[in-house]
């Protein structure tokens, strides 16, 4: 029966083992990074002829102009309502001030 004594490795072989481990991890990382790119490259199909993307400009022009109209109108309504409400409150307070209304 032989007994194996676990002695610590000398410094140089320990460093070599570490380097091997680092190399293995680096290879795995690079492979993990490259493989999806390589797979995607396989999906590339070269096409011949002109195939421009047709985007209807009219819809975009109308959309842009329409957005400006809506935004400005919403803002005007917001300000006009605020103005009406504030003026009503001011009139109410003036009435109280002039009439000397009692504290609520």
């Amino acid at each position, binding site marked *: 029966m032989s007994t194996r004594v676990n002695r610590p490795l000398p410094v140089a072989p320990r460093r070599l083992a570490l380097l091997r481990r680092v190399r293995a991890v680096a290879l795995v990382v690079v492979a993990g990074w490259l493989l999806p790119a390589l797979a995607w490259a396989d999906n590339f199909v070269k096409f011949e002829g002109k195939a421009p*993307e047709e*985007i209807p*400009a*009219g819809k*975009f*022009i109308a*959309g*842009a*102009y329409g*957005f*400006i*109209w809506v*935004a*400005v109108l919403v*803002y*005007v309504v917001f*300000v*006009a309502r*605020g*103005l009406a409400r*504030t*003026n009503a*409150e*001011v*009139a109410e*307070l*003036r009435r*109280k*001030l002039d009439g*000397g209304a009692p*504290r609520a």
Partner: protein
Amino acid sequence: MTTAPAPRASAAPLSLAFLAGALLTALGFAFVPFLIAGAPIESTMGPVQKIFYFHVPCAWALMLSTFTCAGGSIAYLFKGSARGDRVAVAAGELGVLFGLCVLVTGPLWGRVAWGVYWQWDARLTSSLLLWLVLLAYLLARRYGGPAARRLAAALSLFAAANVPLVYLSVRIWRTIHPTNQVVPTLQPGMRGVFWFSCLLFVALWGVLLALRVRLERARTALEELSLDIDDHLDRADEATLRPTEALS
């Protein structure tokens, strides 16, 4: 810091000049699509180039709003001008409004011209940053606590410092956005439509600013009246208490 006396809130109807200006502006907006449709089509970009006739004026309105906001803020910070503060908040809101119009119309144009809605190039990114700073101005005013107005006023100065950067970004950095040389080199048929559209947007900006300043003036008067009411009631309470004190 002394502040100006509270303005008298006017419940009177809007002035004739203001109404006439607002009506003319609205009519102009209804009429300008026909002008734009009749303008020549740009040879490289095609019909989508016509977004230019409101995208660029919106951008100029954004810059004008930012400078006006900063000017009003300077008057408020260094002179204690309440009127300056009112103009600043009105201009700040208009900056957010027209900035939003720029950030929507631009990508719609870009989708057709560049194939993508957005690119993180210098002009687009700095414009977005400017809009965000103006939004921060409004949020600071709303939620900034006791020193909200001063904090927001300082933010507006930062926004104004960003405007030259936005304008010159196409010259300083290599960008996908068209340069500032487009307007001076417009074809004759496009020039008239463009300047009419610019004039219209400036008129719209003026009308909206006047309306918003009016609202702010009314709110200030409401605050002052509320304080007057409280003072009046306190004096009335004191007057009723004095005879009872004399008896005791």
